[in-house]
Structures are given as structure tokens and as C-alpha cells.
């Protein structure tokens, strides 16, 4: 299972693929639609799509002739939720560090009454 998870993280780590995913959140697109804004070959776009497909992030319908690319929003949401939770935990830690920094600066200001930060006050 973690192999799958790794593939999703790897798929989303690339800026072009992230951009493709963002566009797919709005609507399904054909491969040529998806490729249009990028200055890369259709093969390169297909390669990116293959990575997204193997990660389970996108699917392509078999029946329709245009075979539009469809975002599997549930998988995408799950991944972003996990990363967001990890980020939030880091942010909580850094907020506490902010408070420690503020206290440290107060102590330093008290300890060194002669200011070294410019002349105006």
C-alpha cells in the first residue's frame, strides 16, 4: 500500500503534473486539451499522464472515443488532507517557536539596555 502512497506523492511533486491535476479539478479534459498550455511534446504529456494514472489519481474512460482524462477526486483529497495535517502539525510547532522567539527578544532587550539597532527611537 505504501508503494501506492509513494506513487501519489511522487506524482504530485512535479509542477506540471500538479498543474494538470488542478485543471482536472474543474472538468475532464482530452489529452490534447491538457497538453495545449505546455511547451512540451504530446509524448511528454502522455508520460506525465501515465504517472498520474499509475498513482490512481486519474482515469481514462474506455468507451468514449476521445477518452477524456478524469480526476479521481477522492484519492486526491485523501492525499492532500494527509499532507495538510502534517503541515499543520509543523505549523503548530513553529507557532510555539514564534512565542519562544518573542520571549527571547524581550529578555535580550532587557539584558542589553543600550540599543544596537540604529539611532532613532
Amino acid at each position, binding site marked *: *500500500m*505504501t*508503494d*501506492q*502512497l*509513494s506513487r501519489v*506523492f*511522487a506524482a*504530485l*511533486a*512535479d*509542477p506540471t503534473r500538479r498543474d494538470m491535476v488542478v485543471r482536472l479539478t474543474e472538468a475532464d479534459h482530452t489529452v490534447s486539451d491538457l497538453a495545449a498550455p505546455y511547451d512540451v511534446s504530446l509524448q511528454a504529456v502522455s508520460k506525465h499522464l501515465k504517472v498520474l494514472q499509475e498513482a*490512481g489519481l486519474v*482515469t481514462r474512460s474506455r468507451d468514449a472515443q476521445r477518452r477524456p482524462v478524469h480526476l*479521481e477526486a*477522492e*484519492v486526491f483529497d*485523501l492525499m492532500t488532507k*494527509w*499532507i495538510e*495535517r*502534517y*503541515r499543520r*502539525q*509543523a*505549523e*503548530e*510547532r*513553529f507557532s*510555539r*517557536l*514564534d*512565542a*519562544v*522567539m*518573542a520571549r*527571547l*527578544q524581550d529578555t*535580550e532587550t532587557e539584558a542589553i539596555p543600550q540599543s544596537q539597532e540604529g539611532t532613532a527611537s
Partner: protein
Amino acid sequence: MTTIQNPQTRYPEAAILADEHVPAVHIWRDFDATPQQLMRAHTDPDLFVQWIGPDSLTTHIDHWDCRTLGSYRYVAARDGEEYAFRGTFPSVGEDRIVQTFTWEGMPDAVALETLTFEDLGEGRTRLHAFSLCDSFEGRDAMLSSGMDVGLREGYAKLDRLLTGGSL
């Protein structure tokens, strides 16, 4: 490492990136403090223990020798549950700390963390934490928050999604 950064980017809140090429996580965060002050908060155990958290746990330092070739161990506890973390410091410089990091619940999984404090001027500093794990599996376990039960639920849910035939 191909981390393209826009020089205009500011990180008033933590930003995170799972690396594509190696099993690593990047975190960036800007502080209203000098690199020296941030170094102190990371190297002085009395300051470190005040913020490492999490809030729901009480952390105490068991061993602390934060200098090149030193080591550390601290324990976070709540209602008799204890989570111990330990590691060594391969290198402690003026604005950079390299340390290994291990949760004793999985003692074989050793991460290598590099913390860099970049002076942004005007009393502001950017912290960049680069955590390199020994496998993508380990990195992803860390990202999905190791000891939390939410992880198991998350895996179970993803399992269901992936084996449900819809993908």
C-alpha cells in the same frame, strides 16, 4: 536536489513539499528572529523543550549534547504513554544543524535532517528543514504522521478506495 524557489516567496506559515526524486520532505517557514536566535532555540535544551511539543504531550530532555558529534534523547509523555526520540549531531555549525532522528518505536528507521537558517535581513530568518528518510515507505509513514491512529484509518480508507474496483 531540484528545488526551484521564487525569491519573492514568503513563508509566514509552514510550507511543505514531498520530494519527487529522493524519500525526503522539505519544510520552509519564516520567523521574526535572527539566525542566531533560531539556532539558540534549536541548540539550548531549555528553549528547545518549550516548543518541540506537541501540546498534548509533556516533553522532557533525557540527554542533550548539541555540538558536532554530539547526541540527544528526549521523551514525550501523556498518561503513562511515552514516545522517545533520539539521534546524533553529525554537524552543528553557525546557521546549520545536521542531525539524525529516530523514533524509538521504529529504531531501524533513521532519518537525516538538515536545518538551515537563512538570514532574510531586517531581523527575519527562513528556516528550511530537509528530512531525508531511508526509504519512500518510511518517508510516507512520517508524512502520514507515524504514531497517530489516524494513519491506520487513512491507509484502510485508501486500501478500500484502491481495491474497490473504481480505480
